[in-house]
């Protein structure tokens, strides 16, 4: 606790660290857990959000455990946008992870500058965090576009194994008779990969494609996470505007930066686990 700041309970500025009570209108009473009411509520909101994300990831892992096979991440996620033909398994997602972690570091620095009431410092580091967030969302959009281009849909999976057990991206199209997406097969009941080479299906696999929930899980979870990143960016922009307008200088503390910072770090934390479940396991 040596890093904890000295809290003077009588100062008007420190009032915000006390929890409000109905009986004690001015000033409230000391927080039972050492943080202000607003900050503790952010923590408990993040706890509830952690439950939601864990439930989704648990669903993904349970479905994988019940599935006879699952596309290998190294083979599915192996391209980098704008660099056609370069095989870089896990390359792009590593770049994405670094961008998000860096943006988190920038936000921590903004919080630390806030402790020194350094308005300009807070603003600069906040801008860095916002740019990192926007870059991450851009990368996620590129990743989604690439996968959709390969034929991945919420309930259709074009990643199939051939008779030798090698994963390929099979060309697929909407079947006009059934209204569902299907893998295109030639006269020998073989599928054609993205390079035009025909292969025989692996055992138990046919034109309905690989495990059906792969897309729903991927797009659903990364989409939900991306939505959190988006709201985080909006909140950070709001924070930047308030910082530059001097609202926190008038208030006497930059605790709002800390609270939104907590949300942003939570988003980073969730990404670490999404990265684990989808790209590593």
């Amino acid at each position, binding site marked *: 606790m040596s890093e904890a*700041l000295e809290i003077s309970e009588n100062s008007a500025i420190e009032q915000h660290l006390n929890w409000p009570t109905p009986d004690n209108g001015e000033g409230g009473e000391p927080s039972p857990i050492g*943080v202000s009411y607003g900050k503790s509520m952010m923590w408990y909101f993040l706890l509830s959000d952690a439950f939601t994300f864990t439930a989704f990831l648990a669903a993904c892992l349970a479905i994988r455990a019940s599935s006879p096979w699952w596309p290998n991440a190294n083979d599915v996620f192996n391209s980098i946008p704008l660099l056609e033909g370069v095989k870089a398994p896990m390359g792009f997602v590593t770049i994405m992870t670094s961008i998000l972690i860096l943006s988190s570091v920038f936000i921590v620095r903004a919080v630390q500058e806030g402790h020194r009431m350094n308005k300009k410092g807070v603003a600069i580091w906040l801008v860095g965090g916002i740019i990192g967030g926007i870059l991450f969302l851009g990368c996620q959009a590129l990743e989604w576009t690439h996968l959709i281009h390969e034929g991945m849909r919420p309930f259709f999976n074009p990643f199939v194994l051939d008779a030798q057990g090698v994963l390929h991206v099979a060309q697929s199209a909407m079947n006009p008779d059934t209204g569902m997406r299907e893998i295109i097969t030639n006269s020998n009941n073989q599928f054609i990969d993205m390079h035009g080479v025909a292969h025989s299906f692996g055992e138990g696999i046919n034109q309905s494609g690989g495990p059906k929930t792969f897309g729903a899980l991927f797009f659903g979870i990364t989409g939900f996470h991306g939505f959190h990143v988006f709201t985080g960016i909006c909140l950070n922009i709001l924070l930047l505007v308030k910082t530059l307008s001097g609202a926190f200088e008038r208030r006497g503390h930059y605790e709002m930066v800390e609270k939104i910072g907590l949300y942003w*770090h939570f988003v980073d934390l969730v990404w670490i686990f999404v990265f684990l479940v989808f790209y590593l396991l």
Partner: protein
Amino acid sequence: MSGATLSDEQYKKQVRAVYVATGYLTIITIAEVVLALTMHGKISSFALTTFFTLLTFWKAYYILGEFMHIKYEKRTLVLSLGLPLVLLIWMLIAYIHDGAALFKAMFDFLNFG
């Protein structure tokens, strides 16, 4: 957080702590990616899964502890967040076990997997 700002010394210490944590996060991520790329056939998938999970929890420790400041918060707050998370881990394990049981019921007779 208070009217009194940080002393220069405390500030430098805190900034350094954040950069050290960032260094750890970078190294652990690189280790994870290298493991994922090179070890897929070579060690058992159970060992790989354990490695990845442990490394990920190590990263989570740095993000929670340093970036979200939990290392410096009161014990009460940490426990009020940590104990429900134990229930979460229980739920996670239960669901994965459920999935494995489903696999056995649906596919084991085919001698799959």
